């Protein structure tokens, strides 16, 4: 193993150290499964109603906050896909760089082939979980999902 292999090993070991495994990486979260579930009366539905959350009609009824909740906390699921579709229908646009949704607050001041610029509302999912206003924002289309 020549010297530069040593350098490669050191560099890649740093990379591996950067992503040091944590508990959540190998342990599946233990969901509570009742040992002896209380028998609910038969007139209650025993299973979630089939496909209720599989149709976009259901998602039209959800308010915007619920749609954002499903989008950010049911990631990788079909429901996320339906929520995203509903948000788009309501004129929200996903920004791939900021990983959040923007909606025009008014007609943009400038629209070119590469971007549009103006005042927008965007959803702050990291901070206060609310909608915020952003003036003079340039939405580059290369970031439009």
């Amino acid at each position, binding site marked *: 193993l020549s010297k530069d292999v040593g350098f490669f090993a050191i560099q890649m070991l740093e990379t591996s150290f950067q992503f*040091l*495994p*944590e*508990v959540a990486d*190998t*342990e*599946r*979260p*233990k969901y*509570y499964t*009742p040992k002896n579930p209380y028998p609910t009366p038969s007139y209650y539905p025993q299973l979630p109603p089939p496909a209720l959350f599989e149709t976009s009609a259901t998602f039209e009824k959800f308010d915007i906050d619920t749609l954002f909740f499903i989008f950010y906390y049911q990631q990788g699921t079909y429901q996320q896909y339906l929520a995203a579709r509903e948000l788009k229908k309501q004129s929200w646009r996903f920004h791939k760089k900021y990983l959040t949704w923007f909606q025009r607050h008014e007609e943009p001041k400038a629209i070119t082939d590469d971007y549009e610029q103006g005042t927008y509302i965007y959803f702050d999912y990291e901070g206060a979980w609310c909608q915020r206003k952003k003036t003079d924002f340039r939405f580059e289309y290369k970031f439009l999902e």
Partner: protein
Amino acid sequence: LGRDLTTLGLSLNSAEPLHGTFASPWFEGPTSSDVEAEFHVPACYN
């Protein structure tokens, strides 16, 4: 001089095998699956 190996988070005097609760080389303590969350119905419901 090495280090005090009893400070590495393993109960070395345990009569039980350690491998059953050895979660990882990188962090200490039993795994979540071993610490079964116990849920008890409060007495007032009985």
